[in-house]
C-alpha cells in the first residue's frame, strides 16, 4: 500500500478572483488525480499547513483541477497569497462522492450558498458533461451580496444549457451595487421549484445554518430523507479516518462522507455546528 500521506505537487496555472474573499486556483498536478465529484482533497502550502477542499471542476477534467477557497483562517490566508506559477501540494482524493447513477433520469435539485457552491460547481459541470442522462437540473444559488456571488462569468453559459434552470438570490443589496435577480435567503427560492419531491433527489451544500434550514424546508416539501444529499464540512485533517477530528458520532466526515444522505446522519449530535 502506498504511503497514505503521499503528497502530489501541483502548479498553479491560473487564479480567478471570484469575490472579495473567495478565489479559484486552477491547478495542474504533476501526476493526474482522478477524483469523483463530491470527494475532497487536502491542499498544502509548503511549511505552512494544509486544509480540506472540494475540487470545483468537473471530474472529467483529466489532468487539471480547480479549487475554490475562501479566505477565512491561517492556511487559507496563505493560499490567497499564492501566485500563478507557485507550487502547492495535494493529497487525496478522499471520501464519498455524489452517486450520479442515482440521479440519472431524474429531476435534480441543487441548493447551495456561499462557498458551498464550490463542490456544487463540480457536480454541476460533471452533470453537464453528460447532460442527456438527466431529465432536468434546477440549481438554486445564494450569496450575501451581488459582489459575493461566485462564478459570475459562467452564469449566462450555465443558464443556456437545455434542461437547466439556474436561479440566484442575494441576501441584501448594499448601496451602489446592481442586482436584478431575486433578493432573500436562498431557501426562499424553493417555491419556484416544480419537481415531484417524492422521487427526486436534492443536493445541499453551504454554511451550516443554510444547510440546516434548507434540509428542513426540503423535508417539508416532501423530499425523502434518503434522497437529500448533504456535503458536510467538518475538520477533515488526515482524510482517511485516522485523526478523528471530523468524527460525528460513529461516522467520519472524511471517509463515510463528506457526502451523506440526511437519513444516514440525522441523529448525530452537532450535525449543523
Amino acid at each position, binding site marked *: *500500500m502506498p*504511503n*497514505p*500521506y*503521499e*503528497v502530489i*505537487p501541483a502548479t498553479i496555472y491560473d487564479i480567478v478572483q471570484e469575490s472579495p474573499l473567495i478565489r479559484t486556483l486552477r491547478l495542474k498536478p504533476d501526476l493526474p488525480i482522478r477524483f469523483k465529484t463530491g470527494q475532497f482533497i487536502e491542499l*498544502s*502550502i*509548503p*511549511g*505552512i*499547513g*494544509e*486544509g480540506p477542499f472540494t475540487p470545483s471542476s468537473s471530474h472529467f477534467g483529466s489532468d487539471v483541477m480547480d479549487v475554490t477557497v*475562501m479566505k*477565512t*483562517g491561517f*492556511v*487559507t490566508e496563505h493560499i490567497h497569497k499564492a501566485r500563478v506559477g507557485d*507550487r502547492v*501540494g495535494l493529497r487525496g482524493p478522499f471520501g464519498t462522492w455524489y452517486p450520479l447513477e442515482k440521479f440519472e433520469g431524474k429531476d435534480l435539485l441543487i441548493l447551495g450558498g456561499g462557498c458551498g457552491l464550490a463542490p456544487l460547481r463540480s457536480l454541476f459541470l460533471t452533470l453537464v458533461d453528460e447532460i442527456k442522462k438527466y431529465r432536468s437540473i434546477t440549481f438554486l444559488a445564494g450569496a450575501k451580496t451581488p459582489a459575493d456571488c461566485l462564478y459570475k462569468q459562467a452564469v449566462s453559459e450555465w443558464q443556456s444549457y437545455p434542461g437547466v434552470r439556474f436561479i440566484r438570490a442575494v441576501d441584501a443589496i448594499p448601496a451602489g451595487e446592481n442586482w436584478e435577480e431575486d433578493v432573500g435567503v436562498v431557501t426562499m427560492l424553493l417555491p419556484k421549484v416544480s419537481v415531484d419531491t417524492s422521487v427526486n433527489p436534492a443536493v445541499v451544500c453551504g454554511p*451550516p445554518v443554510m444547510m440546516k434550514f434548507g434540509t428542513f424546508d426540503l423535508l417539508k416539501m416532501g423530499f425523502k430523507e434518503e434522497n437529500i444529499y448533504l456535503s458536510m*464540512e*467538518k*475538520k477533515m*485533517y*488526515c482524510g*482517511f*479516518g*485516522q*485523526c*478523528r*477530528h*471530523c*468524527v*460525528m*458520532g*460513529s461516522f467520519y466526515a472524511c*471517509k463515510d462522507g463528506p457526502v451523506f444522505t440526511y437519513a444516514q446522519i440525522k441523529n448525530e*449530535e*452537532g450535525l449543523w*455546528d
Partner: protein
Amino acid sequence: MIIKVDDLMAFLRNSVLAESDLFQEVILPLRLKEGSNMVSFLSRLGASDSYFLDGFRAVDPIKLVFYGAREQVYPVAAKPVQRLIAGVKACDLKALQLLDRALINKDFIDPAYKVWRDSTTILSADCTEAGPACHCTLVGGKPYSEGGFDLNLSRIDDSYVLTTGSDKGRELLEVIQCTAVVKDLEARAQKAILEARTKITELVQSRNSDFLRSEEYRGLREGDMSVWGKESRQCVGCGACTNICPTCYCLILNEEGRTDTFVKVRSYDSCQWQGYARVAGGASPRPRMRQRFRNRYLCKFLYMPSNFKTLGCTGCGRCTEACPGQIDFRTVVRDVLELPAPELGNPPGPNAQEKREV
C-alpha cells in the same frame, strides 16, 4: 517451559548491554525510584538492577513505543530496528489490538506505526499487583494476557512460566534457551499460574466493587448534560488524559516542508482542547468544556466500539492517575448513569431507575 527469574533477567540485561544479532534495542520497564513498584518504559535513569517486569502496568502507555508523540510520516522517517519490549501488561496489549485495527486496516496503513509494529517483539507479563487506579475487570479485561504477545511470563515464586504466542516468540525462546536453563513445565506450576491469576483478578475486582461495569454504560449518551457539567467542573482541559491513554491516537498533521518540498509530521492531538474540531471560520461542534469532556467518554464507550468492535478503554486507569483535577473516570461514569440532575430537579434517567430496582 519455565525459567528462573534471575536467569531471564541476566539474559535481558545482557541483551541491553551487548548488541545482539537479534535485537538492536531492548526496552525494559525501570522502577521510577528504588523500592518503588511504579515503572516506566521511557525512563533511562537508574541502575540496571531496577528493572522490574512484574507489578502492574507502567506509568507510560505502550503506544509511545509504536506511535510516537511526534513522528514524520511523509517521507517516512522510521527505520526498522529489531526491538524487544518486555514486561508489557494485558491492558496495554489490549490497547495495541485497538491501535492495530485503527492504524493497519484494509483502507489505511500508518507507515510509521507499521514499521515499529513489525520490528518489535513483545514479551508480556502477568500482573502481580494492582495499581491504585487499575480497573481492567470493569471493562472486560483481565490482569493477565491470553493473546497478543510473542512470549508471555507468568511469575511463580522465583521462576517465570513461559508461554509462546507467535513465531517471533518461539524464536526468542530458542535464543533464551541458548544461554539459560529452561525446563519443561510441571503440572504443579500450571496449577500455580491459575491460582495466581485468580488471586490478582479478585484483588482488582474487590478494589472496584463500588463501580459500574462496562455492560452498564449504555445510557452514557442519554446522561443529563448538567451532570456532565458538574463532573467536568474540575477539568482544566489540559489533555493529559488523552495523551496518556493507550488507545487515544488522534493526531495533528503538520506541514513542515520548505518552498516546494512537502514534509508531513504527525503529533498527538486532544479532543479536550478547544481548537480540536473547530473549522475555518470558527464553528465548532463542541465549544464548551463539558461537551469535550463528555466526548472522551462517548468515544471510548460508543464510537470506538462501533468503529473497532472493542471498547476504547482497557481499564489501565492512567487517565485518572494523570488528571491534575483528580477526576476519577469511574466516579464520573457512575454519577452520569446514576445521579439525578439536582440543579434542574430532573427525575433520574431510565438507567438509574433500573439500577435501583435491581
